[in-house]
């Protein structure tokens, strides 16, 4: 048995804080691009956990998963930004509060 640099709880705490910051960002930001960045924060919080647990379990799978998450993040960013550009073309803004035609 070897030791982690700091207790596991610290990592989880850090990851939780980053994740919650991401959540808060999504919930409060009006700029869709910032929302997208907040989602990246959430993904990174998860990545941290994956790497930590890969270390804890001595299993490479966790790191491989991070690799896939990176791919997913890239793909998602590409599609998401394309959509946001389309939104900007139609509405002249990426303010999510302007997305208000559909309701009820």
């Amino acid at each position: 048995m070897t030791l982690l640099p700091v207790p596991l709880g610290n990592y989880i705490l850090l990851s939780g804080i980053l994740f919650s910051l991401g959540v808060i960002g999504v919930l409060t930001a009006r700029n869709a691009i910032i929302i997208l960045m907040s989602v990246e924060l959430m993904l990174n919080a998860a990545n941290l956990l994956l790497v930590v647990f890969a270390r804890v379990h001595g299993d490479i799978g966790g790191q491989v998963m991070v690799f896939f998450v990176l791919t997913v993040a890239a793909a998602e960013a590409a599609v998401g930004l394309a959509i946001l550009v389309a939104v900007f073309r139609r509405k002249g803004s990426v303010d999510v509060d302007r997305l208000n035609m559909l309701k009820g």
Partner: protein
Amino acid sequence: MNLFSIAPEIILTAGVLFLMAWEIATGGRKNLGYLAALVIVAAGVMVITQYDRVEVGFSGMVLADRFGHFFRLIIYLAGLLATLTAASAWHGEARGVFGAEFFSLLLVSIIGMDLLVIGANLIVVFLGLEILSLPLYAMAAGRTQSDEAVEAGAKYFLTGAFASGFLLFGIALVYGATGSFTFEGIGNAVSQGAQLDPLMWVGGVLLLIGFLFKIAAVPFHAWAPDVYTGAPTPTVAFFAAAPKAAAVGLLLRLSLTALVDLPMETVFWAVAWLSMLVGNLWALRQRDLKRLLAYSGIAHIGYILVGVCAKGSAAAGAVGFYLMGYAAMTVGAFAVVCAIESKDRSTTLDTVAGLGRRRPAIAAALTLFMFALTGIPPTVGFAGKFVVFSEALKSGHLGLVIWAVMFSAVSVYYYLRVVVAMWMWPADDSISIPAGKRGIRGYALVLILASAITLILGVYPQPFLKIAAESLFWLL
């Protein structure tokens, strides 16, 4: 490797490439939809030929068992109906709103759904979810001439990305608690003590939420009505049923294998309870058909989750059966909307007023679908509800079933209002129903198919129930 385990997916991938090549080669878009439908049928035939086989592939990443086969077939059914709807909708247009991309995206998305139901590993499932979602975002926003579509796509994407953040965090926590991504490994770890680990609980809950979002269960549903209203109708026909079938399939597999020792019914219970309430009540005030069907979809997810709550293989069979019928009746209803809609107006009750006289065949089909969604015998809506609710009763969810029956009764009002409008309201002649005989006739295939399934599964459900029950019994 065992390529057999993913043979249908290989066919679909080949189909995607073929479609793109076909468009470039011929420059024509006319028959793309029907080609895509053929690809789906080919994949379905492939599944049927290996139905009795259990194929494990790629070091256990893929588990194509009967459960997987069964849900693949439901997905193909929903996808096929939606493809035909889209093919009919865009048949007449010289330059389709989408070209090959739409059908290619649709096929890619179907592959993603397959991965949800044949994946035996959270990594595969996560990738599958993304593979199915990205095309959906684009299909929703794709008609970028329309403000509504772009708005729908943006909302869908933002909420979807948010949800996959939760899902991934859940996966990370589950991995932390169990040290494994495979369902088997997770299941073993849970039964050997991880069910006492809070990491596991939090991870499990977040994992479920990631998929509850995909099926638009309350309170993770806010995107659904807006996206259904704004996105192009053929797209909506597609994601009203197929992704839901895939996600419900995954939820069933998770709750019956990996999480079987984790008491998560409470989550399903609460979500089912809320979905029925919100779906049915909110629907009461809708005049826009697509929005009405969106809330109706939320309500139906509530009924389906009643069956997931019951947590048993027989209940899973009932849920599978319900999904089959739900695919037919919901996609059928959207196909009708598609047939009568036009670009410059939304499809409301006023649009369908007097449809019974203007287009009797289409009105009759929509009437059937409305009756089925209401749950009136002898349609599949009734048979499905009956088996799901009785399975829930067997496992003691009396209160939930009473709640469900009550709200089914409430749902009569909004479904029947459509029927009343069609047959009994005077038609507003200023509202034009897209004429072009060809246009309406193009829907004949999809409407006949959907009606036939709605009726046959309702009148003689037994063989299908048997298949469903046997396939899902495989789980345990």
